[in-house]
């Protein structure tokens, strides 16, 4: 006897949902891996601090360390561009290499850079103003909240000297993603998959920013 009921509850929507729930996280991983590979690489000194239970920001899932770089606090008197800001607004920070291969902010803007600028020599980091204190602004770029896996967390706890660096990969849209941490000279790369490299995607080394 043919099963007439099976035709009444359609199977296709379930298969579609199954494909969706498989592909979505995988696409996220691939997108992240692609951002790590094709962005422009920048090294910055970093201060790594564990977030204790009292400071734990419950709005950040799994983040247990905070990475602070000089770019998180910008003196608006020391850079060109606008000087009137309010919290929770997007900001574009133009970077330039300084001594010891460390990058500095030389200009800030509330508007995204021109397309031509991005194609040539600009290196821009997109952030969001967290607080304004006089002429200092506190900026977040999304890479600050660090979810350290157990083995990395152990290294962070055992770290002696505070001469750490982080390696960022900055995309053409100004979004930064953490590529690696260099702790006491040891390179701790972020987990990555090889697919982007197999597809022939590759990263750039930052070219010098134009003169002020």
């Amino acid at each position, binding site marked *: 006897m043919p099963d*007439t009921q099976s035709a009444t509850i359609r199977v296709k929507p379930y298969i579609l949902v199954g494909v969706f729930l498989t592909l979505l996280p995988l696409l996220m*991983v691939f997108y992240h891996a692609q951002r790590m590979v094709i962005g422009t690489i920048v090294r910055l000194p970093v201060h790594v601090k564990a977030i204790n239970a009292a400071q734990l920001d419950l709005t950040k899932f799994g983040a247990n360390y905070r990475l602070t770089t000089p770019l998180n606090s910008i003196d608006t008197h020391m850079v060109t561009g606008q000087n009137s800001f309010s919290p929770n607004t997007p900001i574009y920070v133009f970077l330039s290499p300084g001594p010891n291969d460390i990058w500095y902010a030389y200009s800030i803007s509330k508007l995204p850079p021109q397309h031509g600028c991005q194609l040539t020599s600009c290196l821009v980091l997109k952030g969001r103003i967290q607080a304004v204190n006089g002429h200092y602004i506190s900026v977040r770029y999304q890479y600050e909240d660090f979810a350290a896996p157990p083995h990395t967390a152990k290294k962070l706890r055992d770290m002696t000297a505070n001469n750490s660096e982080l390696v960022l990969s900055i995309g053409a849209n100004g979004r930064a993603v953490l590529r690696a941490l260099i702790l006491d000279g040891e390179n701790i790369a972020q987990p990555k998959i090889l697919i982007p490299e197999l597809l022939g995607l590759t990263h750039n080394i930052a070219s010098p920013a134009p003169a002020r």
Partner: protein
Amino acid sequence: MSYFDHTSNDNTPFAGGFSHGGATSLLESGDSIGKFDVAKNKAYSSYSHGFSTKHMREKGGQGPPDKPRGFLASPITFFAAFSLWVAALVAVYMAFEKYPDPLARILILSAGGWASLLFSYVSKYQRRDFFRDLSLSTILGTLMGAVIVALTSYNTPINFAAFTGGFAFIATLLAVILKERYLLTIANMATLSWTAYSLQYLQTQEYYWAFPALLVVQIALAIELRAKIPLALASLSGLFWLVTNLIILTLAVKISLLMAICAVFVVGLTYSRFGKSMQDNQIFSGLFQTNIGWVFAITGALLLQDYWLMTAPRLPWSNLSALSVFEYPLSAQWIAFVLICFGIIGLMSLFRLRANRQTLLGGIGIVGFSTVLPLSIIFKPQILQMVAPLNIAATPAIGLCIGGAVTGLALGMLANGLRRGKPSMILLALITLSIEAIIVMDSVYAEPDNLMLFGFSVLVMSLTAGLYAHNGQMRDLETSHA
């Protein structure tokens, strides 16, 4: 002559009710009646058990579907799907305990999602609602778990607002695909949390503009599934979102408080007209949507009335900025928004006019009424200048006129609610009249002559509304005779 008992232009159900093959009981909670509605009720009963209208057609539309038969209906199949589901959940737990590799965790979570899908399908087939909802929960759980693993393992933490917003979108998408009320309810709750987060931090979220689209999808699906709780939650989210964003914009001095109140008024009126059109077309929840719109519109009108009644400075109106409507950063956007709402109200009236449900005069009256309050704010200096030579105090005269109009409309709603036997309409009208009495009392006590102006406004509005309703009835009669 039975047609004298029924006014069709406000969709009043016949007092005696219909009896289409025992369908009367299905219509008790609806707003409308007719062949279309009966068909939709049948479709609903098939949805509620997860069976398509195709099956109902095969059954000739008579009674519930047959008891499930075949391999999928067997208890062994259910037990196998249940065992697989439990095994998948244990595997997920073990993955978090034993395997730190994020990709392995994501794949195991996806496998758990597939097992949950199978279990959900079998439970739905066998009409085991509890297990169906349980497995739907684990589908969402495994999906969001995989997303969180992907975000944290690759160090891209997102904030709570982005997470709840994303969750709301994903749950809505799954609800649309699987046509499940349970998922829709979860999506509604996530949407409410997303909006509440904005209010808590008084910050406009990055993707706030996507909210109306999400809301439209949720409301459309709730209407399709005839799901009352998701519909109420979606409407509540919309109200919450609108108020939250208006508060944020007002606090950021992007618009004034009066502009925000006007926005609530025009949105409410527009929504109410949408609800009226839904009633005309006998779509589920038409009356509910009309009432929601009424609450918005009357709240805005009452607040503006209070502002126009102010003869001596008092809070909160005494703290208002002296800037005109045109001097705020979002003035142009606000004017465009109000104009769009007027356009929609006009369009709705045009549709009703074409369907012979409204007269031209009625349509013009509704669009005109909707424009009065925003115009009173935009052209306040000009109004004061115009009224000055007439030796009339613009405040509280304009406030009393607004109060008269609100009272007239509330009386009309009360009469209509009593006639149609709709407690929600009666309750809303009584609440409006009570608030109106409280607002207008001070002004009438201070200057008894104001009572005359107020009474005159009530009379004019009531007569206009009565004439409009009578005209509509006459047109309906003419149409039915033709």
